[in-house]
């Protein structure tokens, strides 16, 4: 963090509308200025060193970090890297550290976190550049390691026939656990994951808890123990619960990890 540069928006009365933001033309300025301090680093560029860069822009009505960053890229700095996909808080692409805490940038209103907003990429994950990290590769690796897919009955059902019934409450409970968007906030917030890169993180444990609850998955606790019964798995969790507190989807991570811990610890003498 050696240098800090400041880039200001051109001093026109109405800033140009960021096209990607789909805000109405011009946006309705609120008169307030915000300053976005973003961590800049491009590993692909020889000689690039991590540093903070400050962008100053006019806050518009209902401005989210998605709108602000799009505007920065379109009008101030075309090189700034970040990831947005759904911009509606459902895909999990845009998790970043906003003022020190991981959260989904697309649904963060600038007026709630400004006027000085510090943005940094999620830790733990491989950095692609600036605010963009490779959560996808990490998540795929975790899924492969934990075999996080439904291990159904090898005797497959005939899909022409009526489906297997399931209690409505159970279906709702499964959906509750299935709402994870793999954004990586829980991992970035986890002190254990910061110290130990091999730790599965809450996302991994929540996946196992989800399949364990699903009667369609034919695995037993012995099978699950093989996947998470280690100090890099559920026994590595130090119950800091930052995962639970930052989860943008409000998953019951505390309850699920405790549940999994009880079941797996129970295998110690079983």
């Amino acid at each position, binding site marked *: 963090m050696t240098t800090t540069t400041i880039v200001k928006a051109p001093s026109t009365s109405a800033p140009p509308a960021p096209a990607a933001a789909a805000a109405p033309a011009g946006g309705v300025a609120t008169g307030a200025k915000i300053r976005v301090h973003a961590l800049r680093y491009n590993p692909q560029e020889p000689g690039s060193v991590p540093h903070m860069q400050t962008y100053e822009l006019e806050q518009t009505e209902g401005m989210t970090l998605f709108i602000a960053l799009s505007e920065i890229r379109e009008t101030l700095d075309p090189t700034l890297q970040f990831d947005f996909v759904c911009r509606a808080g459902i895909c999990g692409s845009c998790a970043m550290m906003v003022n020190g*805490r991981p959260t989904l940038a697309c649904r963060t209103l600038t007026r709630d976190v400004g006027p000085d907003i510090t943005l940094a990429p999620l830790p733990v994950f491989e950095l692609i550049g600036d605010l963009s990290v490779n959560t996808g590769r990490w998540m795929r690796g975790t899924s492969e390691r934990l075999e996080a897919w439904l291990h159904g009955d090898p005797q497959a059902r005939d899909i022409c026939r009526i489906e297997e019934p399931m209690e409505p409450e159970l279906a709702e409970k499964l959906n509750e656990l299935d709402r994870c968007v793999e954004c990586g906030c829980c991992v970035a917030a986890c002190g254990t994951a910061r110290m130990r890169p091999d730790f599965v993180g809450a996302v991994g444990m929540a996946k196992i808890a989800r399949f364990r609850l699903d009667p369609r998955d034919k695995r037993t606790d012995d099978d699950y123990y093989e996947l998470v019964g280690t100090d890099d798995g559920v026994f590595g969790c130090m119950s800091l619960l930052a995962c639970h507190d930052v989860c943008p989807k409000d998953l019951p991570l505390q309850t699920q990890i405790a549940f999994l811990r009880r079941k797996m610890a129970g295998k110690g003498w079983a």
Partner: protein
Amino acid sequence: MASTSPTIAGAGLAERPRRSRVPARLDLLQSATGLVLALFMWGHMFFVSTILVSKDFMWTVTKMFEGYFIFGRPYPGIVSVIVFGILVLFVAHAFLAVRKLPISFRQWQMYRGHMKVMKHEDTTLWWVQAVTGFMLFFLVTVHLYQMLMHPGLIGPYESADRVWTGRWWPLYLVMLFAVELHGGIGLYRLAVKWGWFERGDADATRATLKKAKWVLTVFFLVLGLATLAAYMKIGYEHADRAGERYVPASVQPGAVQ
């Protein structure tokens, strides 16, 4: 197959060598030893704080542990046995818990940095727990060794002389804070770690637990400070007669050896 192909489902789970069950046992033992030690610590605090009631009461409690009221005479060796048990638990707990501590500068730096930017209470509390735990390695060991070797030197004057004339009070003062913080946070963490007391709303339960934790910590700190002050006062007043054993008025001289 319509649903899942057998080449995919349950891929080879049965063929793999089974994972060791030791981590599960270690995890349980870490929690169990911590729980016992924390509960012991609370009990211990109540016993030593009996000095706040009266010297006689404290003497009575001490003698009770030495088996005086069962055997008709004190056997300080009993205390040594209890102390030894606690020492074993303590060493086991330290051994188990040390697996979680940062073991390199990189890990230490990572956690510190993380804690500072996150400003997340439970994350910071863990750091407090780790630091106090580390301190307790040394403080508790010294204390337990003393108790193991001199189990008979517990009493209103004996303890007060140790605290004051023996200059143990700085150690006890630091240890008081370390133990209460470490144990209080530890018990809270045990509850959330294993999902105890959780009924429906986990967030509400956790908030209540957190509050209870702080109330208990403050209570025991106040109690501990008052107790330590009492011993220091007695020790200060008894300094010129240091080494003299306490004998309650109700007990004939010579009855106690």
